[in-house]
């Protein structure tokens, strides 16, 4: 067994997922490519969104990939950190907003 679950070298092997299911992999990668193409959002904006989401799903591969990609799309360190704060705020907010549910329940059962 590997000493760690995550090996940076594995990122380059992403394409190999087609080995066990070529059809689905092909559909996924062609979809993926189209999602990140320049559209109503710029490729740079999409890369920043991906970076923020990568931090939410806490995927080390995606964090590496979209850190480099964001730099190569011309984002600044400040913009990248702000994107991550957006992810963190939504994450934190998503926990906190459930406080309302907790309060509802408290009020339901407490005199």
């Amino acid at each position, binding site marked *: 067994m590997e000493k760690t679950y995550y090996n940076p070298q594995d990122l380059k092997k992403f394409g190999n997922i087609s080995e066990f299911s070529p059809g689905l992999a092909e559909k996924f990668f062609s979809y993926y490519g189209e999602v990140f193409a320049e559209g109503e959002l*710029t490729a*740079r904006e999409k890369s920043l969104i991906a970076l923020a989401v990568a931090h939410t799903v806490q995927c080390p591969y995606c964090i590496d990939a979209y850190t*480099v990609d964001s*730099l*190569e*799309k*011309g984002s*600044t*360190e400040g913009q990248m950190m702000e994107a991550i704060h957006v992810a963190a705020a939504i994450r934190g907010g998503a926990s906190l907003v459930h406080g309302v549910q907790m309060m509802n329940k408290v009020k339901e059962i407490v005199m």
Partner: protein
Amino acid sequence: MQQSLKKSNHQLADTLIQLEVLNQATQQGSQFPAFTQKLRGLNLFPLKPTHLDIFQVNVGKMCNQVCKHCHVDAGPDRKEIMTRATMQQCLTAIAASSVRTVDITGGAPEMNPDFRWFVEEISKLGREIIVRCNLTIIVANKKYHDLPAFYKTHNVHVISSLPYFSAMRTDAQRGQGVFEDSIKALKMLNAVGYGQEGSDLILDLVYNPSGAFLPARQAGLELEFKKKLKAGFGVDFNNLFAITNLPISRFLDYLIQSNNYETYMEKLVMAFNPAAAANVMCRNTLSVGWDGYLYDCDFNQMLELKVSPSAPQHISAFNEAALNNRNIVLNQHCYGCTAGAGSSCGGTTA
């Protein structure tokens, strides 16, 4: 102040060692495909010049800065500069050639005591003059404060490096305080008319990544730079050139020190773009070293790879026809010119 690789007796000051690194096997034991093979696949090998358009003269390695990525290994401790006699040989060659543009670079070319004389003489020959000015030299010493006016007199096309529109990234690459001084110098250039709407005095900027990654799209960066430099500092310029860092000299040292060398080379190789390969700048450029030797480009010059011996190798024996017929000398660093949108002294090529 940081020292040049040469001054600090760094092993990479030896260009043979740089070439060895560029051609060695990866840690996994595999080899990057040879650049020449890639060109062979495109019927571009041997690579030939198209025509001689740009005559690039490196007037010396002396510089007031010691940028971390410098492919020249320039700095205040480098004393190699072009003599007036060699400049005269360049002028004789230019006069007899079809060269449209003379591109003066360094180091900081302005530190060569014969720099102004050289510009004046080229001006008399009626060719476009580019000076690659590092900006900070203009404010480094009183004797350089009038450079913007001097450039204006000779209608010099100024091309200057500014790796980013923020002090953090610029200073990390070029040294403490460089961003602030560069902005001061840009304002002085703007004040005499450079980069202004309706003016024919051209001021272009060069962006290069501050690390082991490829440049963003040139057009997008240009817009961003224009917006940020105007809003933040009231600075105007004409075009932005996005340039890829080639894995040689001090940038190679950085790549190795930071453990990024293989990943970066792999990135360049993976991003090989056939369209960029057909347009590499060595096809219309000749590069002259401080001592008069001839090279296919400034990068080959810094790797001491002289033009093919089938052509004259020194400016004193300049022969345009023979040079136009030479085979361009290539090596693994050339992948830097063909990655993604391509890269040259004039920005992207594909």
